[in-house]
């Protein structure tokens, strides 16, 4: 698995860039990951979603889907796409340092 250095710490990510160990994540890494995704600035609304993703992952062991985010994060699905244009669930999960949300079968 590839290793990437964020804020002076080497972290292990999978082939798609998702953290394999969410415990390695620190808040100051988020803007750096975001920049790689093409987001130059993280607003308060971005942070609201990122913190919510972390919280959900810690409570349930998997990140929420877009639909669940829209129902529970306090940010509508439309706004989620404005904040994270490449797909909110995946992009916010990557920036929040949690694994890619488990798809449904």
């Amino acid at each position: 698995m590839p290793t990437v250095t964020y804020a002076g710490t080497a972290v292990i990510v999978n082939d798609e860039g998702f953290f394999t160990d969410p415990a390695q994540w620190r808040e100051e890494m988020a803007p750096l990951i975001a920049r790689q995704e093409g987001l130059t600035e993280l607003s308060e609304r971005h942070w609201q979603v990122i913190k919510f993703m972390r919280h959900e992952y810690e409570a349930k062991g998997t990140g929420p889907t877009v639909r669940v985010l829209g129902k529970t994060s306090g940010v509508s699905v439309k706004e989620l796409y404005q904040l994270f244009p490449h797909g909110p669930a995946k992009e916010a999960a990557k920036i929040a340092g949690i694994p890619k949300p488990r798809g449904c079968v």
Partner: protein
Amino acid sequence: MAERVVILGGGTGGTLIANRLRRVLRSSAEIVVIDPDDEHIYQPGLLFVPFGRAEPGSLTRRRHRQFRPGVTFRQDAVDRVDLDKNEVLLAGGASVAYDVLVIATGARLVPEETDGLTGPGWMEKVFTFYTLDGAAALRQALARFDGGRLAVAVMDMPIKCPVAPLEFCFLADSYFRGRGIRDEVRLTYVTPLDGAFTKPVCDRELSGLLTDKDIDLVTEFNTGEVDGAGGRLVSFDGREVPFDLAVVVPLHGGQAYVERSPGLGDELGFVPTDQRTLQSKAHSNVFVIGDAADIPTSKAGSVAHFEGEVVARNIARYLAGEPLDAAFDGHTNCFIESGAGKALLIDFNYGTEPLTGHFPGRIGLPLLRQSRLNHLGKLAFGWLYWHVLLPGREIPAVHSRMPEDGKRFSAAAPR
């Protein structure tokens, strides 16, 4: 005192678990099934209705007729469950106490949650075959359709029978060929997933079939709006798929009473459930079978059948004060109609994706390969459903645990 098991929902899971429990529990135990209506629909048959290959009237039977003697059926709507008092509150104001509760109320279609879906054009040029009325209306619309763009779109996961919209595409291809107008029809499959199917080996096979049949594939499309009047699907990220006729699989959620019952369901109304014991995470005397659970399996009748054995055993153990058996492996088994009288079969569980080989052993139905035999298997399944699955019997040679013999595990290696 005699125990009372209350089962909410008289569909596939509720019926088969009631009948299994009647055999497993002592005769003094009371088994009560509650459902707001008395019409049991054979849901796998809905796929064939739009193409005139199943009659709507042939797919339904009375719910209460499917139970063994000694099972009580109550036709009542549920308002909510009080988990602390071990009581089900009915819409009419009465309550039913339980020692064990089984949630078997499946998934509910919530088309109104997608902007525009039930607005102009709904049931005129935008249809779903996931209801009996929708499937019957779509048959008329297909018969009138002489050419143009037909989009088949999944709004978002989870959905019941995730292969059904793909089967619809394959059958539509055959149907238009049969009418001699396939060249006039542009078929597009639109999915929120990043491929035709979630699991790699199966995805390769099904994507290949889409290509062979000249069906366009649009992936990672999260539909934000269905514009029936304008004839377009619009994704949240601003992409568009135009259509003259759209066949959609609406969003799914749990039943409304789950949402009204504090502590029972998750954000979407599904019930958090231990994926091995099938006991709810909310309360030790609540078990879950079928589509109502939040576990990572397909929402499919075969899953409810394979869960039945484990749920029945664990309810008996719970009542006897014994530890539960963490035996459910996520076993799922689906026939996939591929058109022209052929079908594929897939068989998988939590740990093993659908692979090639044969089922249920080295000699048997071919897995993940089109064959006439699998199509006949799918047709025969209608009889098995009413006469073996619902009565809670075992299918000969087919077990709750997924068979490994006959599967080519080397196929899972990435190509």
